[in-house]
């Protein structure tokens, strides 16, 4: 059974089908890419998986445990955490304090204060924010806040992390730095990632497999090469 198994998930917002009968299987240790034009339903899928939005039909199973119906905090404590496309730092808390909250609550078990400090330091290190640890979350640049989102998800001890457009709004230098960071996370940690990215080059480089959504429906699935050569994807995605 897949590490993350999404079975026939649909989500209706009034008259709009944001997701229609989506199936998706993520294997342990891979980077799974999620692609699709604006409004395709990528963020909605993240919200359904993380427990922020209840699916109209279908269910989500993570590591053998059914997530559907659980609160986001419960989902996080089971080891699955997402970041936000529109960043949501704890703006008035320091960067280190942002991560401390995640370390204190994210794992679902009580850590000692030494363990918490170690988790915080490790998460700072992982995204190169160590020298900004005492700044307020709100004082970081957009690139810094995107990194803080990632670090906070890491600090929860999540085994599967969903990154929603962590490169959007960054300049080319910041994008290549972020790519380096993500490559490093992939090689150094045994984590599983689901990533959404409009920066196609980065998505192709990072992902092991890619699923393409269009208007809430699955239209293609395969390796980056297969997706690159897919007619329907080229048509829908590149106009």
């Amino acid at each position, binding site marked *: 059974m897949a590490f993350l198994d999404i079975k026939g998930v649909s989500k209706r917002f009034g008259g709009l089908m944001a997701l229609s009968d989506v199936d998706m299987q993520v294997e342990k240790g891979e980077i799974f890419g999620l692609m699709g034009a604006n409004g395709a339903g990528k963020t909605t899928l993240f919200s359904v998986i993380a427990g922020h939005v209840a699916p109209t039909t279908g269910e989500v199973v993570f590591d053998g445990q059914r997530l559907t119906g659980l*609160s986001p*905090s419960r989902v996080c404590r089971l080891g699955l955490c997402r970041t936000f496309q529109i960043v*949501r730092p*704890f*703006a008035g808390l320091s960067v280190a304090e942002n991560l401390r909250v995640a370390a*204190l*609550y994210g794992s679902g078990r*009580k850590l000692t204060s030494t363990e918490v400090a170690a988790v915080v330091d490790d998460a700072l290190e992982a995204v190169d924010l160590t020298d900004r640890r005492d700044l307020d979350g709100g004082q970081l640049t957009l690139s810094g806040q995107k990194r803080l989102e990632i670090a906070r998800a890491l600090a929860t001890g999540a085994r599967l992390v969903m990154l929603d457009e962590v490169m959007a709004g960054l300049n080319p230098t910041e994008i290549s730095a972020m790519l380096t960071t993500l490559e490093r996370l992939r090689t150094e940690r045994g984590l599983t990632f689901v990533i959404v990215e409009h920066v196609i080059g980065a998505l192709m480089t990072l992902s092991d497999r890619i699923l393409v959504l269009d208007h809430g429906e699955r239209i293609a699935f395969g390796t980056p090469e297969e997706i690159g050569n897919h007619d329907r994807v080229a048509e829908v995605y590149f106009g």
Partner: protein
Amino acid sequence: MKNIGLILGVALAVVAAAVPAFGTPYMMGVVFQVAMWIALAQSWSMLSATTGYLSLGHAVFYGVGAYVCVLLTGTIPFEWALLAGAVAAAVFAAIVGLPVLRVRGPYFVILTYGLSELVRHVVMRIESALGSFGRMIFDVPRTEVLMWWMVGLAVLATLGAYAIRHSRFGAGLAAIREDEVAAETVGVPVTRLKLFAFIASAIIPGAVGGLALLRTSYFEPAQAFDPVISFTIVTMALVGGTETVRGPILGALGFALLSELLWSSLPQLYMIVLGLTLIIFILFVPRGLSGLFGRLGRAG
């Protein structure tokens, strides 16, 4: 500098201990008042300073405590009546907490105010249906005893507020204040924590209401649930500063002293001064007296 809140709390206890030696009933009354406002403002801060859910209805816990206490005094020792008041306030908070804490920002402010007023009117109806227009209490403990109890509650509330802020619980509450959705996402059980904070902030006001009742030895719903109590708590906490535990202490001290001065000379100015001070602090000293002193302390 860091533990100044605790130091002030202890200092207050020492002052109170010295009072009976040279103290007049008037002095004991002043200490009682100051301790009362510290206990209330500190309790309020356990919910409102930590989570940012500003309660404008804390008089309801004070009133519930006073009411339960007046119903019980005479039948059981007053200490047990006070405890019952505290428990009743906590139970009340636990019952209304979940629905009330579903709304945020200005809606929460208005809802807590409305709830407090609702309970006030219900109790007034009950009392008048029973044909009671205020209840006298006989055989109340001496002022000195009451003062000691109140000082104890002030110290307890200060220690409680300090402990919450420096705990895992407090870190979760701070995250809720900053961004509830993000807090939930990183594993903070938001609903449960908010409810715990709401209950924690209700307990001591319940006992304070009971003590205040014993001091006046008279219960009248309009007084016990007076919204001015809620306004004063909020003003004191905001003027003192909500970022540290010393804030509510400074705010309560400042106001209690100010009110002693004003009541004796210009009573009609009290509410005006209360309002003006609040406006000035919100506009120009958002971090309160505590922030002001902290800055002067660092500069000096």
